[in-house]
């Protein structure tokens, strides 16, 4: 398994698979296959795919550790960038189809609708992460600062779910929201558990050192 993942093929494969939803949407838009309200369809679909890629991106590390497959790490950046790709399209559907690319209207809509504000905020927060995703940026910033910046990603599940929750609140229809919230909660929960375990581990080691010190 680990060896198969090191093979050059999986990466382009994941890349192509990740583009499939986009390809379908482009095809659907031109072939008139997106139902009576294509603008709404595109907006919802790009939002759904953003959430799915967010889940996939955040699943890489837990999977890597649990399955003891360090090579999985190679896919994290690509999946993260696809999350940004879809959130950018999602932003664009709103800005273009809903607001006619009118900055004044966009500003008014952000101020008027809390769910738009939170969605827009999520998009803004993800932007520096996408912008500093290449190797040179890591080098230029230094690994510590780069890592600190990229911890922003842990805020996104909260803002994204709030955005989705508020959007569905009009219809009191939270089944799908709950599914995504549960998945993201597991992925973040795993990290919390790991962090606690590490801290405890450090604590135990420190105490062990203290007691073994010669008196």
């Amino acid at each position: 398994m680990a060896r198969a993942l090191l093979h050059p093929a999986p990466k382009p494969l994941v890349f192509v698979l990740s583009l499939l939803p986009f390809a379908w949407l482009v095809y659907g838009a031109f072939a008139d296959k997106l139902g009576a309200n294509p603008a709404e369809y595109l907006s919802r679909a790009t939002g759904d795919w953003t959430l799915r890629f967010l889940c996939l991106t955040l699943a890489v590390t837990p999977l890597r550790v649990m399955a003891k497959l360090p090579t999985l790490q190679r896919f994290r950046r690509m999946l993260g960038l696809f999350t940004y790709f879809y959130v950018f399209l999602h932003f664009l559907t709103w800005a273009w189809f809903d607001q006619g690319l009118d900055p004044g209207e966009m500003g008014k809509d952000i101020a008027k609708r809390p769910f738009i504000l939170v969605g827009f905020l999520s998009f803004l927060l993800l932007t520096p992460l996408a912008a500093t995703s290449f190797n040179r940026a890591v080098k230029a910033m230094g690994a510590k600062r780069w890592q600190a910046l990229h911890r922003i990603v842990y805020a996104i599940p909260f803002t994204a779910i709030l955005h989705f929750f508020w959007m569905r609140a009009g219809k009191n229809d939270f089944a799908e929201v709950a599914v995504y919230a549960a998945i993201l909660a597991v992925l973040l929960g795993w990290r919390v558990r790991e962090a606690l375990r590490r801290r405890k581990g450090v604590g135990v080691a420190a105490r062990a050192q203290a007691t073994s010190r010669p008196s």
Partner: protein
Amino acid sequence: LAAVRSTVPGAVTMEKITEYKDASSYNNFYEFGTDKSDPAQNAHTLKTRPWTVEVEGLVKKPGKYAIEDLLKLSAQEERIYRLRCVEGWSMVVPWVGYPLAKLIEKVEPLGNAKYVEFLTLADPKTMPFVGSRVLEWPYAEGLRMDEAMHPLTLLTFGMYGEVLPNQNGAPVRIVVPWKYGFKSAKSIVKIRLTEQMPRTAWNKAAANEYGFYSNVNPNVDHPRWSQATERRIGEDGLFAKKRKTLMFNGYEAQVGQMYAGMDLKKNY
């Protein structure tokens, strides 16, 4: 469903008619699901025969009308109305029906009848989402007496020359073209004349968002979005600028006087 074209002022818009496929597949009918494709998929379970509509309340001659008798109560007319949904999209639909006033006159309203309440079917056996917490069931709507008696308010049995598809509110619904779509109750089983303003389903669910009147009004925003513009389904392309919403959905000349002197910001 045979009908003659209506000659009532405002009853026939010359705008391009929305395709039947769009008008019958993009629906809000929460008894069959909250997604707009759900009703077309799920409403085949609705049984439209036998069907009776009970007219009761403040009337001299209350009664139960079998759908067959209701269909024959007055001459069927074709009306081509704009339909504006509160969500910001619109269609142009050719309906078949006759003025609700014909039925109301028949039952002879008492002097103190001020409102008309509509109750729609709520059958958990055939409507999978009745019982979900989205709204209180049965779906309830209402009009003021003068609105209900207005010649444009249509008791509707068909569209596009055919009987209503289930997802569009078969076998009988109301269509009030100058109000947001949710005011036009579907699959009606009871019509009740009252003195008190009836509570409506959406008003109960979110009173600050959905008022009793809910007239189409580009100047009064929904608390969560603007109502100034709309997208015409099947017509306005992805990149087209959305079209401006008209006061009373373009029926101001016909209905505006009913609201003279009313603060429409307060009575939204």
